[in-house]
């Protein structure tokens, strides 16, 4: 009986670890459905980007209220997880607050910091719930924020609130048990925030208190492990993905579009500029021009999709979206993830994968959305974790223009003008210098 709790804990911990490992493997293989891309260069720039943008939350501070609330939750998440280490050791060793005797009075300081953060997280999450459901901040109520995205967001906030309440209740009952001198409840010193809850528990018999303290402990640790598994299915994955995603971000100026080497070869042949090298060899397998489905995107585009937490800052800044067009950069990212997971889940079950008759373009993202983009980079600038929806939009335009000749009619006229008059407008090339005489 003495070891039963430890065995149960070990089983739960192992199960959570196994499921997490399976999930991480699937996510990794889904990301690797994307095309190759070299982002191994310039490590010092990349480190700086990760430290400033992900670790330092720099881009969050464009909007101060959510930035501060988010900072509490973020610091809370990082610091309170240190306490999880104690939970795990206690759970495996059958001990109670194993760090307390070693850390002495510092344990009290540490616990009070944790409690301050737990209270901050609690308050921030309640405010977030209000912003989403009562004040209905615009970016949380747009068309793509339907059933699952809305439920996902609320589940995350409610779970975090419950986890924080569990920590504070656990510490409150623990303190009552300490003052009653119950065996095993080692003296922690006063814990300021949970003391506020003590009156709730003060009158209860010791048996009840031990039950509540133990229940809160188990609730918190199982909750954390469950949450870790849950976020792999959720938009909340950004808490991990923000770090690699900022590290691997594009370091070129935002205005630069990637060149297509496959096109360069053909253009050089057409202009008679190519050496024998190109024509002598059998052409390599020329993939598609542009992006029709997720395997045409790069792994970084797919990592972007897993990193997106659907905050909607991109969509809020998008000029097309602000003026009522169908385009929403957030929806682009959500569509990429949905399609990627559809394909990934199918492949994991030996299903049809990409050959299911569907594609990202058409079944998820329409031309009307893509055609509304002004390539203004407002979405790219707005993203706190350096996601680039614009690249995906422009790559899909490449597919439409070059594989389908399906661009809007006025663009086809513009193309013709450039081809024949070397200007997007239909003017005679010989008139180009007439401004001199005007």
């Amino acid at each position, binding site marked *: 009986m003495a070891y039963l709790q430890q065995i149960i804990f070990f089983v739960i911990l192992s199960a959570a670890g196994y499921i997490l490992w399976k999930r991480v493997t699937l996510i990794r293989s889904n990301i690797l459905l994307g095309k190759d891309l070299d982002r191994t260069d310039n490590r010092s720039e990349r480190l700086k980007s990760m430290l400033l943008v992900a670790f330092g939350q720099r881009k969050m501070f464009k909007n101060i209220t959510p930035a501060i609330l988010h900072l509490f939750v973020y610091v809370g998440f990082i610091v309170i997880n240190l306490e999880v280490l104690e939970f795990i050791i206690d759970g495996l060793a059958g001990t109670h607050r194993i760090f307390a005797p070693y850390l002495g009075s510092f344990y009290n300081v540490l616990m009070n910091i944790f409690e301050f953060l737990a209270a901050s997280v609690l308050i921030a999450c309640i405010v977030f719930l209000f912003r989403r459901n009562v004040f209905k901040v615009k970016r949380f109520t747009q068309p793509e924020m339907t059933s699952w995205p809305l439920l996902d967001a609320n589940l995350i906030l409610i779970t975090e609130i419950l986890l924080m309440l569990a920590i504070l209740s656990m510490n409150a009952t623990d303190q009552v048990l300490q003052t009653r001198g119950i065996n095993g409840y080692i003296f922690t010193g006063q814990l300021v925030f949970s003391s506020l809850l003590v009156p709730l528990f003060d009158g209860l018999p010791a048996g009840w208190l031990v039950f509540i303290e133990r229940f809160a402990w188990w609730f918190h640790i199982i909750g954390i492990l469950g949450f870790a598994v849950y976020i792999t299915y959720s938009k909340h994955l950004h808490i991990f993905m923000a770090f690699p995603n900022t590290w691997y971000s594009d370091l070129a100026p935002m205005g630069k579009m990637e060149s297509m080497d496959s096109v360069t070869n053909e253009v050089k042949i057409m202009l008679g500029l190519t050496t024998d090298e190109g024509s002598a060899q059998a052409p390599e397998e020329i993939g598609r021009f542009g992006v029709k489905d997720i395997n045409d995107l790069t792994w970084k585009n797919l990592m972007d999709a897993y990193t997106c937490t659907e905050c909607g800052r991109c969509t809020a800044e998008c000029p097309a979206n602000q003026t*009522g067009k169908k385009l929403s950069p957030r929806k682009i990212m959500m569509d990429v993830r949905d399609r990627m997971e559809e394909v990934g889940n199918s492949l994991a079950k030996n299903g049809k994968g990409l050959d299911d008759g569907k594609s990202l373009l058409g079944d998820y993202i329409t031309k009307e959305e893509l055609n509304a983009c*002004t*390539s203004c980079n407002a979405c790219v600038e707005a993203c706190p974790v350096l996601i680039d929806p614009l690249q995906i939009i422009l790559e899909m335009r490449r597919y439409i223009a*070059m594989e389908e000749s399906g661009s809007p009619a006025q663009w086809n*006229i*513009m*193309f013709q003008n450039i081809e024949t008059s070397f*200007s997007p407008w239909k003017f005679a090339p010989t008139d180009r*210098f007439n401004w001199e005489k*005007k």
Partner: protein
Amino acid sequence: MDEAPKLNVPVMAELTAKNESPEILFWVGCAGSYDERYQKVTRAFIKILNKINISYAVLGTEETCTGDPARRAGNEFLFQMQAIANIQVLDRYNIKKIVTACPHCFNTLKNEYPDLGGNYDVIHHSVFLQQLIDEGKIKVKEGGSFKGKKITYHDSCFLGRANDIYEAPRKILEEMDAHLVEMKNFKSRGLCCGAGGAQMFKEAEPGAEEIYDKRTTEALATGASVIASACPFCMTMLSDGIKNKEKESEVEVKDIAEIVAESLNL
């Protein structure tokens, strides 16, 4: 129009024939060449270039579209056809430094031509003008026509977010003691005029409002009598916005180069 004096504009082919190689190429761009409104900006900039006695030239009829709108609309073939042909011309003349009054040409020449072998020192005319002021080559305060005047500056996306140029155009306006007022959204949060990404060449998708109307509303809310811009597309869109709102008699859209030329009484 026709009575305007012919400008003395050196052309690359002619200079090369005389064995001269100018220090800098002025890339005019299609809007600067053909668009009636932006031709005035081209002429204003030429007047400044002539005043400072810099050795420059234009390509004249040898210039062609950089390919930017084709690339943003998805036609990479056409973009590269244009780019590679342009690079051949630029390299034939051994061009090292290019100044342009179009942020789209600027972005493409500076950031995208290197991938295709075209490497030049490319500078936007707003930065170029600011440098001339800094170096004391032009003294904008002399004219004084903009002193105390309420001016708002509209950030071009391809200059601002795309290339991080926010300060140069503003410094120029501050140099002439204009009363610079900012719109609700400015610098990295500046609202697009609606013309980028090849939107200039097609109708907007269905929606509730035109982007340029929204931006014009923001500009008018500042109470400025001049909206300064540094991009031909922005100029077209904002001018249309002003016309739609019947404010042409009260508010003008002017390019940074025109403002500088005016303050120099050119």
